């Protein structure tokens, strides 16, 4: 499957990245926990459309307050309006999202989290391609089938705007979702209402950032850039995105 990924890239791409990106593309195409493959691919297409072609998103991004600009999103999917609003705002202006905005969408929390998961995986891959000067890869064809509709027992409200799974409640199928021996970072808990989105996204984290044990191993370097250079890049991106996490 990864055989065709980055074969014509101007710079050699590590095999683990090629494998992880091919796997992510496959996940986007397949039925998820609450969404069909067609809905997941539509979310990916809508994300790209929001970045490149939505006049409302552009006007809101430039406004002092996004809520001061009315209008309709330029959309290219049949997704519900609330989901389109979520996709466009997360894709184009994530630093000004609020809990009241999220609550006001009226989207099922699990559907919302799975939508975030698809946007996140696509964003990680598309941004990487842009960095190398590669065109964004054509989206996959959806795979037919039904979502699992597996409810996450033990997920509770309190940490974030949506329910999340505390490590102490990660049992059964969810055992092993978090690293053992230390509390998970909140970013790892963020999408735990839909555990498969955590697993998929952290597959990308391991190859695009660092595997867990390497993150705090400052005696050794694992990439062609140092820990300090990695953190500088991460911090700069977050500052540009106005993300305080």
């Amino acid at each position, binding site marked *: 499957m990864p055989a065709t990924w980055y074969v014509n890239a101007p710079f050699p791409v590590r095999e683990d990245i090629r494998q992880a990106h091919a796997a992510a593309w496959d996940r986007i195409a397949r039925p998820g926990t609450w969404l069909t493959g067609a809905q997941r691919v539509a979310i990916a297409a809508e994300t790209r459309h929001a970045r490149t072609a939505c006049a409302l998103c552009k006007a809101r991004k430039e406004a002092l307050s996004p809520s001061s600009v009315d209008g309709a999103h330029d959309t290219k999917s049949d997704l519900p309006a609330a989901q389109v609003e979520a996709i466009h705002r997360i894709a184009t202006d994530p630093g000004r999202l609020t809990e009241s905005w999220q609550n006001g969408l009226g989207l099922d929390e699990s559907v919302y989290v799975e939508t975030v998961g698809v*946007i996140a995986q696509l964003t990680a891959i598309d941004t990487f391609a842009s960095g190398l000067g590669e065109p964004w890869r054509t989206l996959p064809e959806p795979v037919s089938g039904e979502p699992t509709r597996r409810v996450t027992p033990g997920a509770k409200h309190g940490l974030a705007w949506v329910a999340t799974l505390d490590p102490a409640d990660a049992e059964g199928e969810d055992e092993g979702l978090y690293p053992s021996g230390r509390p998970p970072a909140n970013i790892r808990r963020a999408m735990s209402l839909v555990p498969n989105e955590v697993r998929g996204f952290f597959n990308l984290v391991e190859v695009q950032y660092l595997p867990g044990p390497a993150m705090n191993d400052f005696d050794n370097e694992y990439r062609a850039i140092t820990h300090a250079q990695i953190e500088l890049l991460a911090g700069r991106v977050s500052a540009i995105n106005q993300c305080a996490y």
Partner: protein
Amino acid sequence: MNGGEADGNIPHGALLANFAEAVVSGDPAELRDVRTGIVNTLGAEALVDSAAVVGLFNAIDRVADAIGIPLEDWKAESTTDMREAIGVTAFPSGRG
């Protein structure tokens, strides 16, 4: 703050910060120049690893902000001065 001033006393920090800025802002001409700069200075492997990090954190920021997760207390305490210095606490997501 612009990338050119934000090297953090890290080798080639300004170049890397400019790369992050060019990728996220999507300026093709600037991106071409800084990409060439990284390859010539740090090598092609470093460019690939830098693009990977920028891509990942462009996604992580969206997860964090869309889900509304708070910064861990220990991280907030250990980075208070740095967060004040770069203005992170003024961001909407940094006020909680």
